[in-house]
């Protein structure tokens, strides 16, 4: 697969179809990879593909400094490719200017990341080029099991759980930086007139930040799990993201990152949405 990937990347650059290839390169040790940005065909040898290709490289598609680099190709796992769908639906990228190279993937990490256990896009969808064999998708039936487990505990317990988790937040915003869908050039936490979210890493402001982060990804999060993976405090951010994905799925019948034509759930409505909540 590596040879095929390098070959394809080289072709794309040689023919001038793209000006930049964003892919995985060798990291500082064999269990790491890091993003590489390739502009010369001869550099395509730097590309690697293995089970340590964690990063969701689609985050770079919205970087202003890369947007001016012309047409870009990006190497994606199936989960990452879902972000491209959302980014193009939200008009953050011009899909015509991006070539998505999807890599057939049986999961990353050792042990396997938990998202990979319920992966139904092991053969990536919505890609321009797919490299690798067709792999049978896994069942998503139990994808919300961890959410349900937490939900089964009583409210005071849940509050205590989250209070403890969020109290460890150091407000580094790595979750935001890694997220392909957190692309606002000015994030609300950087607004200081008024100061919406307190800046210090204090439990009160941490709750505000984490609630807001999850809320802003409601109906958008594609479940790549990068926020949680990069969190230096190991806060289970995906639990909150998955909870909202579950609500959106149940209430509005929408799953993010699959259908390019379906309207965005939080930017649309149905007159017959549930009215149960309202008195």
């Amino acid at each position, binding site marked *: 697969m590596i040879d095929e990937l390098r070959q394809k990347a080289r072709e794309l650059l040689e023919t001038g179809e793209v000006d930049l290839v964003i892919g995985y390169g060798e990291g500082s040790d064999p269990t790491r990879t890091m993003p590489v940005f390739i502009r010369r065909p001869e550099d395509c040898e730097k590309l690697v593909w293995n089970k340590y290709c964690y990063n969701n490289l689609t985050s770079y598609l919205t970087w202003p400094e890369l947007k001016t680099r012309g047409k870009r190709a990006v190497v994606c796992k199936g989960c990452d490719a879902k972000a491209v769908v959302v980014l193009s639906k939200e008009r953050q990228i011009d899909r015509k200017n991006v070539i998505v190279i999807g890599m057939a993937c049986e999961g990353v990490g050792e042990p396997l990341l938990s998202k990979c256990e319920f992966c139904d896009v092991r053969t990536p969808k919505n890609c321009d080029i797919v490299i690798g064999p067709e792999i049978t998708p896994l069942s998503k039936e139990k994808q919300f099991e961890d959410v349900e487990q937490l939900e089964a505990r009583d409210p005071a317990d849940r509050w205590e759980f989250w209070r403890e988790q969020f109290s460890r937040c150091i407000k580094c915003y790595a979750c935001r930086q890694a997220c392909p869908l957190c692309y606002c050039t000015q994030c609300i936490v950087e607004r200081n007139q008024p100061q919406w979210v307190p800046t210090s890493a204090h439990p009160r402001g941490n709750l505000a930040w984490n609630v807001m982060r999850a*809320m802003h990804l409601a109906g958008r999060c594609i479940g790549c799990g990068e926020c949680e993976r990069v969190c230096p405090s190991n806060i289970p951010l995906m639990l909150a993201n998955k909870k909202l994905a579950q609500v959106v799925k149940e209430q509005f019948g929408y799953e993010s990152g699959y259908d390019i034509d379906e309207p965005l759930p939080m930017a649309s409505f149905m007159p017959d949405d549930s009215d149960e909540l309202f008195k």
Partner: protein
Amino acid sequence: MAEKEWTPKIVAFVCNWCTYAGADLAGTSRLKYDVNIRPIKLPCTGRIDPLFIVKAFEQGADGVLVSGCHPGDCHYTSGNYHARRRWIVFSELLRFLGIHEDRVQFAWVSAAEGAKWADLVNEVVAKVRELGPFTAYRELDSAEVVS
């Protein structure tokens, strides 16, 4: 000095066109209702960011009420429909975090429903009074920073 007896502090985010006018009607109709509510008028329920609610709790509210025009009656045609989706999701998130669902309550009150507004406020206040002060949130203030 003896400590004052606790009464719930409730922030109500209401829309300009229906609920605020409804509350006005309750006033001009001389209806009596609980005084624990602090209404904040916004153009539309669609203007109410979930952060407003978080902010209200940060500032010491014990409960929040969100109210606007009935579905189909929005002054801006669809603001409340958008808001409804937002609240469905947001209320679930708060519940998931362990916040009682009665801490944030939602309603539709039209400009003609002064009586409904009065009843609603009484009901919201009663429910929050039952829950007691939102100490769990306030304790975050005094929490030590774990590093």
